[in-house]
């Protein structure tokens, strides 16, 4: 049913999306907590910065990543010279590109859940002698678990669909960075690629629907457990 090339593309996309979620979890939880609980000068600015990837054209972000992390970029040059790491044309580049795009989605979801946690519960724990870190990991985070889950699934789906930043930063290298959207794009450009592109389009819809169904199932299970 699936050719080995198609299977490889799907597996690569899933690998990139899964890594994207893993990479994002800690920073997103941290950022969500800062934005939800802390009040400081520059809060609005930080909030805007976090949301920037949602409104910027993906190709702009891809280009910024190239300038920063490319082999001759500000950071990328050091990475390459010291450790011989080149992110462009490597699947980790695709992970980074989609992680940048998905970051605000994840932060938003977790932050909304954190805001809904009753501060009295946290204060009660604190009066009983729990350190702020312990309060966060035993009270706030478990209560905001559904937000983390939603955020993770949103980020996963966003990563599956990421195109602009990926093709600009990570390039279009078969077997390495050619994820589903890039493969579909490549096929739509070739003379007799329409049928093959259509197969991948259907595949792409299937993968996304499955991701959404799994997310609903998880959420319902979670709700039942809470009740």
């Amino acid at each position, binding site marked *: 049913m699936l050719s080995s090339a198609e299977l490889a593309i799907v597996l690569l996309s899933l690998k990139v999306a899964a890594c994207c979620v893993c990479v994002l979890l800690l920073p997103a939880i941290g950022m969500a907590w800062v934005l939800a609980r802390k009040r400081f000068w520059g809060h609005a600015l930080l909030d805007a910065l976090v949301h920037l990837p949602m409104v910027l054209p993906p190709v702009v972000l891809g280009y910024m990543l*190239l300038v920063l992390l490319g082999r001759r970029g500000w950071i990328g040059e050091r990475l390459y010279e010291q450790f011989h790491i080149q992110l462009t044309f490597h699947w980790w580049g695709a992970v980074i590109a989609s992680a940048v795009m998905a970051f605000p989605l994840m932060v938003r979801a977790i932050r909304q859940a954190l805001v809904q946690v009753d501060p009295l519960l946290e204060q009660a724990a604190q009066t009983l002698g729990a350190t702020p870190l312990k309060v966060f990991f035993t009270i706030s985070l478990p209560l905001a678990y559904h937000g983390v889950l939603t955020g993770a699934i949103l980020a996963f789906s966003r990563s599956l669909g990421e195109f602009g930043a990926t093709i600009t930063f990570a390039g279009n290298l078969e077997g390495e960075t050619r994820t589903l959207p890039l493969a579909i794009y490549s096929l739509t*450009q070739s003379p007799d690629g329409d049928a093959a592109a259509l197969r991948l389009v259907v595949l792409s819809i299937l993968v996304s629907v499955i991701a959404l169904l799994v997310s609903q199932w998880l959420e319902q299970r979670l709700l039942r457990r809470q009740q």
Partner: protein
Amino acid sequence: MKKWLWLSLCLISLCAQAEEKKVRIFAAASLTDVMNVLIKQYGQQTGEQLVPVYGGSGTLAKQLEQGAPGDLFISADEKWMQYLKDKQLVQAASIKPWLSNRLVMVTPLAKPMSIRTEPSTDIRQQVPGYWCTGDTVSVPVGIYAKQSLMALGWWETLKGRLVSTQDVRATLRLVERDECDVGIVYASDAQSSSQVKVAGEFPENSHVPIVYPMALLPQAGAQANGFYRYLQSADAKKWLISFGFKPVFAD
């Protein structure tokens, strides 16, 4: 509410009117620099404003197939011209071979190299990094490049580190930025950039001849016809040669 509706309608009709008269030239990405100059020259001579649309020849052909408004199409290979001809989307009688070009390897300016285009060259040893060229299925420069790499027996070695770009200009940029170690582009592209150096030229018999055909599209009017004739003039020839192309038309 009603007022806003009227206002937006007026704006839309204004835009529509402004759109109508533009003559659009759909040209392969490798023509970007020279076509900008030719359009400017033609504009100075006749006062006519033409709008260029650049991209990979395949991208442009697919856009035209989907009804993009264009008057003149210049492809970087004969395959995409044939594609539109088969679908009767170009004026068949107007198809003319216009230019020829050469296929070269370029490296970033800071890392000059000389690569001998012979089957005996140990390409795995000599150039270990990434190679860039247009998509080898759809972008003309990539299609030519694949033919040459196969003729030299390098294809299997390089396949896994060959990065596809949407057109030849994207390849050029990646080499300029030193993200790619080697790029396969046209000689005219190599000449257009001060940031890259030519590392070698592919033998002409290693790929099908590089021909840029041009053709008028069905809706082309007198203005497009005028430019079509200008492109085959002695003046145009002079510019094309100075940008590194080889005109194949008789003026």
